[in-house]
């Protein structure tokens, strides 16, 4: 217990020097259950990615070898710098993020302590932004199709582009139709469905327990010490 305590102090002292600790604490105030150990670990990781700089740039993610093969790589990296996710405005991309921002993004993947609403809206918003790349509040067929192409082409590297695209269009169209049908305001006769709005998007997730699905388990060693 004593050893743990002292290392914690040491780390705290250390961290005060190179990042604005108050800010981090303030940022964490919005009910996210990061433990000391986790923040410490994430901070080490952050410094590794950013090359010991206080700010992380998109290039920092090039250093993650496993991410390279992820079909959603571009989207994930984009999500880290998306102003909408960072709470810095309704559009645009930040050039660099601080550790606090970094934690904020990771926090989307932690169980929210306040379970106020059934589908947590902030998480939903994060996912929506992943689909809606141009930030117009609509997931159009084009956007949906690109997501599908990303996923499909990664799994079928030997397929030629055309058949993947055909498949993607096919499925995206079906998905969109399905969303339109489930929509709050289903398009009237003769009306076209422009794209999935955020509200409709939430509906498409209705069958999935987001709290369970959207979580990244960190090795929670503290459970052992309890």
């Amino acid at each position, binding site marked *: 217990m004593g050893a743990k305590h002292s290392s914690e102090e040491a780390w705290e002292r250390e961290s005060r020097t190179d990042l604005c600790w108050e800010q981090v604490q303030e940022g964490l105030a919005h009910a996210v259950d990061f433990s000391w150990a986790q923040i410490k*670990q*994430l901070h080490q*990781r952050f410094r*590794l*990615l950013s090359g010991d700089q206080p700010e992380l740039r998109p290039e920092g993610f090039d250093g*993650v070898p*496993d*991410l390279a093969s*992820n079909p*959603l790589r571009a989207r*994930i990296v984009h999500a880290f710098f998306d102003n909408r996710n960072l709470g810095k405005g309704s559009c645009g991309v930040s050039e660099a993020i601080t550790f606090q921002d970094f934690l904020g993004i990771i926090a989307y*993947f932690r*169980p929210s302590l306040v379970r106020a609403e059934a589908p947590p809206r902030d998480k939903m918003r994060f996912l929506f932004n992943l689909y809606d790349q141009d930030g117009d509040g609509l997931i*159009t*067929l*084009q956007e949906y199709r690109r*997501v599908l192409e990303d*996923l*499909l082409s*990664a*799994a079928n590297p*030997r*397929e030629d582009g*055309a*058949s993947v695209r*055909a*498949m993607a269009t*096919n*499925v*995206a*169209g*079906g*998905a*969109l*139709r*399905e*969303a*339109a049908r489930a929509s709050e305001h289903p*398009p009237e*006769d*003769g*009306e*076209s*469905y422009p794209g999935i709005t955020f509200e409709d998007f939430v509906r*498409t*997730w*209705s*069958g*999935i*327990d987001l709290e*369970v*699905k*959207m*979580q*990244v*388990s*960190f*090795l*929670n060693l503290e*459970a052992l010490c309890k």
Partner: protein
Amino acid sequence: MAHTDTQVCDEKPSGTALEMLVALSSWHWLPLVMVPACSEASSYVNESSNSTQQAPDARFAASSSDLDARISVFELDYDYVQIPCEVTLWILLASLAKIGFHLYRRLPHLMPESCLLLAVGALVGGIIFGTHHQSPPVMDSSIYFLYLLPPIVLESGYFMPTRPFFENFGSILWWAGLGALVNAFGIGLSLYLVCRVGAFGLGDVTLLQSLLFGSLISAVDPVAVLAVFEEARVNEPLYMMIFGEALLNDGISVVLYNILIAFTKMHKFEDIEAVDILAGCARFVIVGCGGVFFGVVFGFISAFITRFTQNISAIEPLIVFMFSYLSYLVAETLYLSGILAITACAVTMKKYVEENVSQKSYTTIKYFMKMLSSVSETLIFIFMGVSTVGKDHEWNWAFICFTLLFCQIWRAISVFTLFYVSNQFRTFPFSIKDQFIIFYSGVRGAGSFSLAFLLPLSLFPRKKLFVTATLVVTYFTVFFQGITIGPLVRYLDVRKTSKKESVNEELHIRLMDHLKAGIEDVCGQWSHYQVRDKFKKFDQRYLRKILIRKNLPKSSIVSLYKKLEMKQAIEMVETGILNSAVFPTSYQPERKQGTKRLSPEDVESMRDILTRNMYQVRQRTLSYNKYSLKPQTSEKQAKEILIRRQNTLRESLRKGQSLPWGKPAGTKNFRYLSFPYSNPQSARREGWAAESTDAEGVEAGSRPLMFSAHARAGSLQEKRPSQAAVLMKRLPGGQKARSFSPRRSWEEQAGRRRTDAIRPRPLFHAVDEEYESGEQTEEETSAVGSGWTAEHPHGREHYTSHSPLLHRK
């Protein structure tokens, strides 16, 4: 003795040839029953079966000597066929009962199938008992372990939903492994304490005996529960806990059982020392790990061998079955856990074998596996029913009631403590409700009974008591808990998975996987998503290269897809062009229908596309039914994909020809032309399909067609002449198909179409245009939408009435 042995061996092949496939496994027992001395494993064959084996042997000897004396015109020799005949009748009876059970729709929802089997068994037992007939000795140690058990285990290993299993691997291992141990020792020890109470008259039950009983009674068999879960759609982790328990529990109990049997034998001669107990523990670990190791090795070997079977695909199922069985036998030879070996073997090879073997072999493997395991299980359940009725019971109120009580208590203790611990490590813990359901799902089954029945009488003077207690526990859990768990799950309202399955959800889940893996990569966390990624990379880089056929570049489903694409391209030439010429569509009416429901088949097929093509080739859905296979075999998928593809391409064709004509009234009939499922033509169509998919020459010939659908506009110009040529060639086929069309409206329009058919030019630009610009979004929406719209009204009819075509393909 030697004489009868050879006679049996001589008789066997002819019998096998005559006998139905169903009875195959039963025939294998024949030599074994006859030759009790042959196997080392039968050292503790119980005495009752030994005595009955003498009868047929004597009979054989007698009949052969009779033959020398006189030849009679008519002879009745029932004894000769008694065992296989009765076994066959049992199985048939059970199958008929199952048919009846499922004919009445509501019954399967009310009670699990094992109830039925038990009831049938009890009925048979009643008949046998009433007629004072000697029931055939189906069960003895070697038969059970060598023939009845492997198919059951193989089946559950092979059909394991791999992905959710490994997602919850830690919790499953913790629960299934430790749970079985805690239960076994808890029940055993507390029963031993009860037996020490003098008033119950159980003073002669030793500690080892009660421990052994604890180990066998703790083997749960929650297959019935799984069926309920499937229906109630409980959440995935909960489902996987029970499934994992079903999968691993048998193995653990059997290992424990065997070790304890060894201890009991030893106990007769010398005292057990602490060293022996330590050795037993070490043995437990080695037996388990060694079994898994051999299973994995044999899995890889069989996957490797199926790489070379493309010319003799009839052998493929044999390879799969023989290697899994061999892994079991080898593990057993080395005193390792054969159950774990065969499970590991099935899990390992499944993935590669599925890609290597032909579609037909794959289907054969699946069905044959289901059939074997269901035969095994049916036999065990029926035998359980048969042994219920009879005199071989010893009823001791105290022992039986306490057994029942301790089974529940210890299950409750193990569930709540073990899950309390494992919840500390889970981000999303199992709720109290979940835990209660897990507690309640402790249904005992065939496994416990078999182990109890196989107790050697020499070591267990009170075997009858144990068997009776096991029967009572099994009956209680199967009938009471099995029937009530459904309502209980509904009443408790356990957290559900998605009620309806939709394309969007499937997609979201896929996306979420990648997202999580990516975030974990970023965070540098090592967890199962990353382990999975790592394994996947290793798999892609090395394993697949070694184990999967090179010359077949695509996985079976992808190649199937290719074939269909080609077939469809040909059909399109036949019919699609005609359609678009006759029925050019304006967008307005389609948009009107744009929000119509997708039919369930549409959703299903799109999900199939997703599951098949993203990330993993395997299926994600956790549908597992012990007794039957879901109809979602590839034939169905093939059909779905075909229809889907056809619509896309037709859609793009139509787009290219978007003349501002109104939609003619007969539009929806075009389904019948383009996809002439209706019976008169199916024979012809079949021939057509075979011709077009199989022969190399045809493939080369139609290649321009196939690619033309996707080709860039430039290359298109050059290919046009050849297209036209092929078009002309194919046309008669199209006309023929059309002339068979049942719809009157077709006949009327046929003439016009024929003339229009010769001008397919503008159509092939369509696909390209679709991808070139982003401004077309809206158009695309409606265009793609209309594909399904057009198909929708007839979707159901197609699947119900015309399915034979693709099945026969």
